[in-house]
């Protein structure tokens, strides 16, 4: 057990357990230690064990769960597919995890008004698949879209490669049904636009599960583009690639996506995916332009022109959907491919103004040299969202510590150039300690009081986003990943 786990709760109250089983049936409650061990992780490196995991099927179930948790003063944490990268779905202080995996029904598809009503456990990509025959899709496309749930997306305000042109989750959610930790069911927003009053939907999206449990979501559906052109630009210098991005932006072209991979990552990916990336280059840009056929064609020409002016060695245009899918497969598998090269890796999620891309990449390279750590760069260049991947061996304690230091130095640089500490992964239990670098005590206080409106006891997803009010500047010891100690 990681030594720094702060939770005090031991076994869950047997009466609570009985009541939960009465509410949800026997197969709706997990409480044996062997089952709980499988809910101590998500997609991040964080770990903490819940006391109980429950599987509601209806909003009424969720109301009942919240009421019970509230009555027993036990923490309550929502969970979708557990693909999050900041520990959002981890019961940091124990308590009940509410898994929405079984609430996975698409309730209504309203093609005429371009809306869908879904339960929180619906998998992101499944919604797009379900409306594809109508010529529609659900636009936000996090890299985990084939597994992550829309409820989780709402909590994290998830982004993705194509959010450059289409916007992130908050731009596509119009209404929510939520259950407050008190057990009260509330509707926020409306299916039609511009509900009078404060924009509670906008406030709720991205609250990382600290405001309420989502039981239904109404989203906008977007028309699929008529044409998509995917370009692959190959560079011998990282600077040329980053300058290309800056000029594409400055020229007023908004690609649907604009991703960059550096040479090291390209080689890792190519070795695994065989996407056709050249092995002897320093960077590639993967760019989608879409829209009307005429628009996509013209923009593709413009983009190609910019790439060449910035000394792209080669610009390839995918000839068909298969070629495009292959190139994108290379991008989407980049993290996994990098993960194959070392026992562990840590992905940072900084954001910078796009004009600072060249400087930031130079800084990352310095940091890499300073610590002697391999850092790969894969990122949403189009919106300045960096994902440096730091490789390390978790069994090497010094390297592990250096990794955290290097990650922090990268984030500090992001802040220094006017950026932010997380673009899409969320603050969660990973970066709460970094919040004071961006926000004053007054800012954080206001956020705390806003949270208290929804979650006055603080028992809904405790230990997330906001640093402990007293604990600013405390030394943070990251829990060791489960794989930290190899079997003897």
């Amino acid at each position, binding site marked *: 057990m990681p030594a720094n786990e702060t939770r005090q709760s031991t076994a869950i109250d047997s009466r609570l357990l009985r009541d939960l089983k009465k509410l949800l049936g026997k197969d709706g409650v997990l409480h*044996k230690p062997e089952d709980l061990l499988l809910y101590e992780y998500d997609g991040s490196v964080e770990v903490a064990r819940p006391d109980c995991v429950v599987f509601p099927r209806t909003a009424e179930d969720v109301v009942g769960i919240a009421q019970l948790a509230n009555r027993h003063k036990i923490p309550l944490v929502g969970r979708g597919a557990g693909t999050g990268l900041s520990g959002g779905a981890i019961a940091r202080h124990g308590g009940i995890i509410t898994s929405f995996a079984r609430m996975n029904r698409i309730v209504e598809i309203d093609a005429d008004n371009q809306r869908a009503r879904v339960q929180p*456990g619906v998998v992101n990509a499944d919604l797009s698949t379900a409306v594809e025959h109508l010529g529609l899709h659900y636009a936000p496309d996090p890299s985990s879209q084939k597994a992550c749930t829309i409820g989780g997306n709402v909590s994290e305000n998830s982004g993705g490669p194509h959010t450059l042109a289409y916007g992130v989750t908050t731009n596509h959610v119009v209404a929510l049904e939520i259950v407050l930790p008190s057990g009260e069911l509330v509707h926020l927003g409306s299916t039609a636009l511009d509900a009078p009053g404060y924009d509670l939907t906008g406030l709720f999206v991205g609250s990382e599960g600290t405001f309420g449990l989502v039981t239904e979501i109404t989203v906008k559906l977007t028309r699929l583009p008529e044409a998509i052109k995917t370009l692959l630009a190959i560079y011998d210098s990282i600077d040329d690639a980053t300058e290309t991005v800056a000029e594409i932006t400055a020229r007023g072209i908004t690609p649907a996506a604009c991703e960059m991979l550096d040479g090291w990552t390209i080689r890792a990916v190519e070795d695994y995916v065989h996407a056709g990336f050249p092995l002897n280059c320093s960077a590639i840009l993967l760019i989608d332009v879409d829209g009307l056929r005429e628009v996509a064609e013209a923009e593709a020409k413009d983009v190609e022109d910019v790439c060449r002016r910035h000394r792209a060695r080669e610009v390839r245009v995918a000839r068909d959907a298969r070629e495009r899918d292959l190139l994108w497969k290379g991008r989407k598998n980049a993290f996994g491919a990098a993960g194959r090269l070392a026992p*562990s890796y840590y992905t940072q999620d900084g954001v910078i103004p796009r004009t600072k891309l060249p400087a930031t990449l130079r800084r990352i390279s310095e940091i890499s040299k300073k610590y002697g750590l391999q850092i790969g760069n894969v990122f949403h260049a189009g919106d300045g969202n960096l994902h440096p991947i730091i490789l390390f061996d978790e069994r090497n304690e010094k390297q592990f510590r250096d990794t955290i230091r290097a990650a922090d130095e990268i984030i500090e640089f992001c802040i220094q150039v006017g950026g932010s500490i997380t673009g899409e992964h969320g603050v969660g239990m990973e970066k709460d300690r970094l919040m004071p670098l961006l926000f004053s005590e007054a800012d954080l206080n206001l956020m705390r009081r806003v949270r208290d409106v929804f979650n006055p006891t603080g028992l809904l997803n405790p230990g997330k986003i906001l640093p402990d009010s007293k604990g600013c500047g405390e030394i943070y010891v990251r829990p060791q990943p489960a*794989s930290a100690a190899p079997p*003897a």
Partner: protein
Amino acid sequence: MAAPLASGFAGADKPEYADYSRCIHCGLCLNHCPTYRLWHQEADSPRGRIRQMHLVDEGRLELGAGFVTHIDRCLDCRACETACPSGVEYGKLVELARTQIEQRYKRPLASRAARDFVYRRLLPYPKRIAAAARILWVYQRSGLAALARSSGALRLLGLQQRERLMPEIDSKFFFSEMGKTYPARGARRARVAFFAGCVAQVTFSDLNRATIRVLQANGCEVVVPANQVCCGALPAHAGVRDVARDLARANLAAVPEKDFDAIITNAAGCGSTLKEYAHLFGGNDASHQPAARFASKIRDVSEFLAELGLTAPLRTLPLRVTYQDSCHLAHGQKIREAPRKLIRAVPGVELVEMPWADQCCGSAGVYNVTETKASLELLGLKMGSVRETKAQAIVTANPGCILQLRAGAEIHGTGHEVLHVVELLDRAISRRD
């Protein structure tokens, strides 16, 4: 920190840290796992199962009933491998976990006896398979089956659904073809060995014959090597690795791979094991190199024909079909296009894709017998997807899938015909109507 706990694994055949630590618990496999999609619990997901292996290895979880249940419930369909961005070899891990269970966990007596009978006393011996099949054949043809069904005896025993999933025994076994050579029709384009399978010889002899005919018609000389035995897939999947190794050695000896352009199988499950024969033996094992050479010659019949190109003239078959990806072809061998290409090659055949075509139908080797309830639920979902396509026939690439889907068509009363890809080709080539 407490002292390191003792691992729950022992011996050589166990999930290794180097393999399972490649899992970055990103969760991308979850929605692709049939059992996660049924029950939505981490314990029944690939990520959760890998975590359980990890925990057992760390000594934090007992190699006990819970672990065994979740590992047993895995279909070993390997859809998770397709979804995995990190290249985790899940199939290998789960087979090794099962080997540990086999060695270190005491199952209830009945289960032990049944497993022992099937894996150690039946599958390795072609003659016993034939004998067992004769008994079943008598049951099925003598009216006993009808009696058992109508009398309600099966329902009483809880066997009614399970019985439907049983293969029907052919009247003419394929064993008689062993050792024969079939000439190419027209100019010889390739010389291949045909791997006939074990259970398939008594239940799919027609399919085997059709496979040979299609190969012949496309210019292949086909040899059916004598002395070949079960490929070992079923014991390997079940964790009975010693038997699997023995079978593999026997096959290495039976099929001189250098004499052939390819060794052909029409069973995706066998093909995937045959292609991974080298995994069964450690790098230092004397059989490792021969196994690797042997494996490099293995081709699924669809893969081989798509690569070779069809030369036999095909007549028009007006048929709307949908294709069910056999797991061990799509996920195990990464072959998706070849069978589709062959289906589309038949004039008049319209291929309509079903949603989630690459999700397991629930057959999964002996899964339909050992985990009948889950198997039937998966089958129900599959038949729902099939219905959406309004296809008249389901085409697939593995005998196990064919049995399962036929049972599905019967249980759900959909009336679908179920064909192997080569049976479809055979029908288009065949002169007799």
